[in-house]
């Protein structure tokens, strides 16, 4: 299983902060496209992504046990 985390606007639009998905073997880009289509999640394809708390890119292939987080533009500080 893959754990997917949502924050900020994405979390509010989706109405939840995480999902468990059976998407091992998918790339990040494939996951994003699927989420955008399935949940009408605006702009997720343009969002930064972290896998297991490190930034990664759209070609990264997911493995079972990974935690994926979509990271809208940060605004801390």
């Amino acid at each position: 299983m893959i754990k997917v985390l949502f924050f900020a606007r994405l979390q509010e639009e989706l109405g939840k902060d995480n999902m468990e998905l059976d998407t091992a073997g998918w790339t990040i880009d494939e996951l994003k496209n699927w989420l955008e289509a399935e949940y009408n999640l605006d702009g997720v394809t343009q969002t930064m992504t972290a896998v297991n708390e490190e930034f990664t890119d759209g070609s990264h292939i997911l493995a079972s046990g990974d935690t994926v987080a979509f990271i809208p533009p940060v605004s801390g500080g």
Partner: protein
Amino acid sequence: MTSNYFELTDQPIVTEAVIEKVKRREAGAVTTFIGTVREFTNDKRTLKLEYQAYQSMAEKKLADIGDEVYEIWPDAVAAITHRIGMLDISDAAVVIAVSSPHRKTAYEANEYIINRIKEVVPIWKKEFWEDGTSWVGDQLEKTHYPTGEPWKGEGHD
């Protein structure tokens, strides 16, 4: 460097406590940056703010920034506390303290840290205006940013 040099908290930040972490007999300079909630941004009034974080990753990224500082300025010691949750005007959202033997390093490393926080630390600010709310930096109609690497955040700069 223990991990509590870089932490998130849902309680008011005590500046003096962050400073205490970096004080050393070999330091001649301590700089502090306190990012506070500003009431007006371009004539638009903020009522309050909410900070949300991907907590575990955020603390890890703060510690990574501490490592970057150590690489660039080996004689600097840094501590960062970032608050999450609901904040009122003038509340401290972040306190950064840096000590070093000489002052130039303490200023440079401190400014480096706040710039990096705004680039890579997964913390989000939600503004509560008189006419609604918005997540800062993520207004789809006007924000364009590349995927694949961290970007410049907005805020009190």
